[in-house]
């Protein structure tokens, strides 16, 4: 067979070029630890990676939301705890003042204490959260409870605040509108009232020397409402913890999936690289051998 000399060189050059390119690709994969440098390296894999990246970014945002919701729930729980303590004291006063042995001065002193408690309750109900907005204002950012000209305290907030998304369409109510906790408390006579009005009415009755014996039940009703709200917050906190664990677990699963698609099998790649380099070396050696053969060396 007739073998053109230039063809011999060209073939070896192409072969060595291809081997060098292969070694370079493998080396790149090892250096970046990524098998997919461009979508065309593995279109289906790239598509899956995009979806994984997307749900990863969503999960990061949702975990931040969970942290925010947790802090809001904790703040609500603390504020409600303070209100619980105050209302417990009010209940004690109701029981104490119910006994007929109290003098008018003592009743007046108790009424003054109740006034102070109302002020405290108002301050606590208007607590701001970490974001600087009222905790119990519902979907409004206005101060929720405002003392009116006639001394009564009115709710100025709005409806429920938006529920915070915590992943896969799940949402959580991180705050509760004060209207649901402190307002709409049914009195013994069946009429609805609010926490502030109950305590204020007690103070007024004490000042005028009236009987507050049955008012303890109304205070208890307000206290129950607050305790229930706290319990609900505790339950929501537990749910958030579950969601957080779920998202973290999903993150690990996602990382495993990503690694399976994208990461380089280091052992296999190093072996492949070594093989390519060995073949390249052999080709170079045979190249120098082949090209050193020439009949012209024997021409004298």
């Amino acid at each position, binding site marked *: 067979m007739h073998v053109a000399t230039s063809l011999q060189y060209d073939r070896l050059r192409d072969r060595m070029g291809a081997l060098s390119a292969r070694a370079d690709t493998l080396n790149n994969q090892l250096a970046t630890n990524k098998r997919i440098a461009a979508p*065309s390296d593995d279109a289906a894999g790239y598509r899956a990676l995009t979806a994984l990246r997307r749900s990863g970014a969503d999960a990061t945002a949702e975990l931040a939301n969970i942290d*925010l919701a947790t802090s809001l729930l904790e703040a609500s729980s603390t504020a409600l705890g303070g209100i619980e303590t105050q209302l417990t004291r009010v209940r004690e006063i109701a029981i104490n003042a119910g006994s007929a042995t109290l003098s008018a001065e003592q009743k007046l002193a108790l009424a003054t204490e109740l006034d102070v408690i109302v002020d405290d309750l108002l301050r606590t109900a208007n607590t701001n959260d970490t974001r600087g907005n009222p905790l119990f204002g519902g979907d*409004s950012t206005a101060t929720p409870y405002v003392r009116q000209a006639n001394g009564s305290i009115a709710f100025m907030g709005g409806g429920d605040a938006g529920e915070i998304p915590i992943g896969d369409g799940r949402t959580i109510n991180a705050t509760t509108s004060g209207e649901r906790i402190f307002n709409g408390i049914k009195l013994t006579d069946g009429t609805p009232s609010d926490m502030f009005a109950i305590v204020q009415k007690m103070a007024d009755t004490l000042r005028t020397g009236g009987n507050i014996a049955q008012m303890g039940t109304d205070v208890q009703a307000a206290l129950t409402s607050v305790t229930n709200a706290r319990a609900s917050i505790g339950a929501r906190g537990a749910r958030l913890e579950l969601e957080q664990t779920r998202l973290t677990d999903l993150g690990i699963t996602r990382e495993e999936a990503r690694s399976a698609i994208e990461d380089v099998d280091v052992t296999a790649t190093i072996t492949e690289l070594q093989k390519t380099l060995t073949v390249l070396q052999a080709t170079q050696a045979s190249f120098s051998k082949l090209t050193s053969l020439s009949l012209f060396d024997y021409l004298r």
Partner: protein
Amino acid sequence: MSDLLNIGASGVRAYQTALSTTSENIANAATPGYSRRSATIEEIGRTNSISLGQTIKLTGAGSTVSGIARAGDSYKTAEARTSGSDLAKTEAGVAWIERVENALTGNQLSDRFTTFFASAKGVAADPAAIAPRTVLLEDARSLAAGFASTGRALTAAAGELAGQGEDAAKQLTDLSASIVRINRGLTRSAPHSVANAQLLDERDRTLEAMSALVDIAVSTDDFGRATVRAGGATGAVLADVETSALVNFAVSDAGEISLSAYRGATSSSISPSGGVFAGLADGARSIADARDRLNQVATTFVAGMNAWQAGGTPLTPNPGNIPMFEAGTPASEIKVHDRFEAGHIAAAAVGEGPRGNGNMTTLTELRTTAGWEGMFDDLTTENAALLATRRTVAGAQGAIHAAATAARDGVSGVDLDEEAVNLIRFQQAYQASSRVIQVARDILQTIIDIR
């Protein structure tokens, strides 16, 4: 006795030519497109001048070089051309599809989408705060910039493609003109001359360069003059013995290329199925398709987002109801409205207070139903799959082309070992012929020396 001298002298002359032909081969061993040549040595036939007293012809008259033979196989050459044309098409196409891939992924539009919608979740968590809204607004700007730069990268690619096409058209025009010059040279040159062999080499080289640009059909006459048609055996004539064509390239906005050949007053269009032009056609379609689909995503995104924005309640008053995104020309040139502020993002549904996030929930649904991210990812992955397939095809065609070139060069290439053998053979024959001259002289001297 003068016959013997003549025979010797003819041998010396013939082998001198043979030696220089071999030297020429050695010198051009690495010249691309050079075809191996050999001197055709023939015996000189004697027709008259029989010596006195002889009745029949007893001796010949030596040898002569009747011509220079050029090694070559026109079928193998044609095959190498065809496979080269196929390979050039795929490789040119791959380069442009790769450009599309770089444009689609290099500007991280997909990631920007992801970030934008993830930030929307932050606004949903705390709709009354300005900080998460500012983040969302910045991400919206980044997303708009992503659309614009992806669109610009594709537009730039389309522009470069048109430029490359024009360059290739000029090149094809020049090559066609070369063919006509070579054809004229072939008309004048004597067959089996060195000049003729050089012209034929030049012809094959030029044809190969032309076939890398467009698939050509070549027919040659007895002189070896080529008539070249582009785009198949019935395609437009690029060059014949007399005239060559002026080739013109243009590409439309829709990504359709038009290639036409003007010869004198007639113009005919070429539909390339091979070579760089076919690759450019392929690439132009890919780029146009990517631009179309990107614009479509941009248009529906702007419309969808602005409708969503209009359907909610902003945190701070939005006089004139400024939309969030502004559409541009082309559609991918979108941007966030200059006067749109973070507080204008309509997180709350109608009727909700500042901490309501009803409209953000709608956005989550809109993200799923509109599927903008999916549309864009489809575009990226389809292009990537096409690229991967084409690369495989290019690999296979490269192997076919290498085999065809090897077959052609096997016939026409220079083998230095063979030339070395020839060198020794012709050198010895030359030396022997010169000995014949010496012997003739000695014999003549013998006769002269008789006294």
